[in-house]
């Protein structure tokens, strides 16, 4: 779908459907970087990391009675890897950004890397699997978990801000 919009005198046989497609092609085409990223995403097929997709989100999955404070949100990623790792993440909006509290079950990883649209924050994970971090006002976050023995895990991106 490229090129100029058809002139009205040429649209006698042109259907509305095609005219709409041509219109959208002018006012809202998919940006080329989106297509390039999609092609590059093939590399994720075999990234060497176990992937922990978002399993539960209090923002969209919680009933009224279980919903937390207005500024608090609970996310659960996983299960991932042969051990069925789950990552529980509490994200609380505070002045200037977010407070993040995490729990990895079962414990075993030693470092959490919180990747966001502005960079990354590294935090140690204790023997019980807990970690905490402060984040600036960011749009999206994902975690990478690393450990000497446990296989690396990456979570899905999640929009937070």
């Amino acid at each position: 779908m490229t090129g100029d919009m058809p002139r009205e005198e040429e649209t006698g046989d042109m259907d509305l459907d095609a005219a709409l497609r041509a219109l959208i092609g002018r006012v809202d085409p998919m940006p080329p970087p989106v297509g390039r990223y999609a092609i590059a995403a093939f590399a994720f097929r075999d990234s060497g990391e176990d992937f922990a997709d978002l399993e539960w989100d209090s923002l969209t999955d919680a009933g009224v009675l279980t919903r937390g404070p207005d500024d608090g949100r609970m996310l659960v990623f996983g299960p991932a890897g042969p051990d069925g790792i789950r990552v529980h993440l509490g994200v609380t909006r505070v002045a200037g950004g977010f407070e993040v509290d995490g729990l990895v079950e079962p414990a075993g990883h030693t470092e959490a890397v919180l990747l966001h649209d502005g960079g990354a924050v590294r935090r140690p994970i204790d023997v019980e699997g807990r970690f905490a971090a402060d984040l600036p006002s960011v749009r999206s976050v994902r975690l990478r978990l690393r450990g000497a023995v446990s296989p690396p895990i990456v979570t899905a991106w999640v929009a937070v801000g």
Partner: protein
Amino acid sequence: MWYGTDEADYSETTLKESAMEPNETAALVHRARAGDASAWEELVRAYADLVWAVARGHRLGAADAEDVCQTTWEKFARSLGTLTDPDRAGAWLSTTARRESLRVLAARNRTPPAGDMAWIGAAREDQTPEEIVVAADERLRDDDLASRLWEGLNRLGDGCQRLLRVMMAQPAPSYAEAAAALNVPIGYLGPTRRRCLEKLRRLVRPAVSGSLEHGHDR
């Protein structure tokens, strides 16, 4: 281009036409699973615009829509090996894009703006809705038909705007893919799409002089 003799038949044929038949999609998924990058690129060519259309149909701005697209394609790549229905990869992509779009909307604590199509031309997040609509108007000013179509789209309800935006993906989505994108039964699509197009025709018609009338004219 397919010229139908009946609006209903034409609409349904257009709706059913998509880039690939399900068996073709399945074959590409299997090849991509085996590491064939060219097969992956064909899948991207077939469905990238649909994923974009789903995100934009949820009235996400450009940056959020790009995030949804990136997340969707990454998840698809990671899920290649475990897809249970490779022939329905298009519907899988549509569903994932829809869910990610809803999650972004919830996270931004955002209610999509109702009414005008300001969201559709949001090239920059710092553009006001008024600037976006004006910019689109400027781009279309030299084309009377396009301007009237644009004006008509702006006057449709939210449901028709989202449905038509998804349908305007290139290539056109299949019934299953569109239904997944909109989270509606497949049987809902044909009649609703016809109703939305008829509404749009009525909005555009006063200055159209029959150029966009029913298919039997053609």
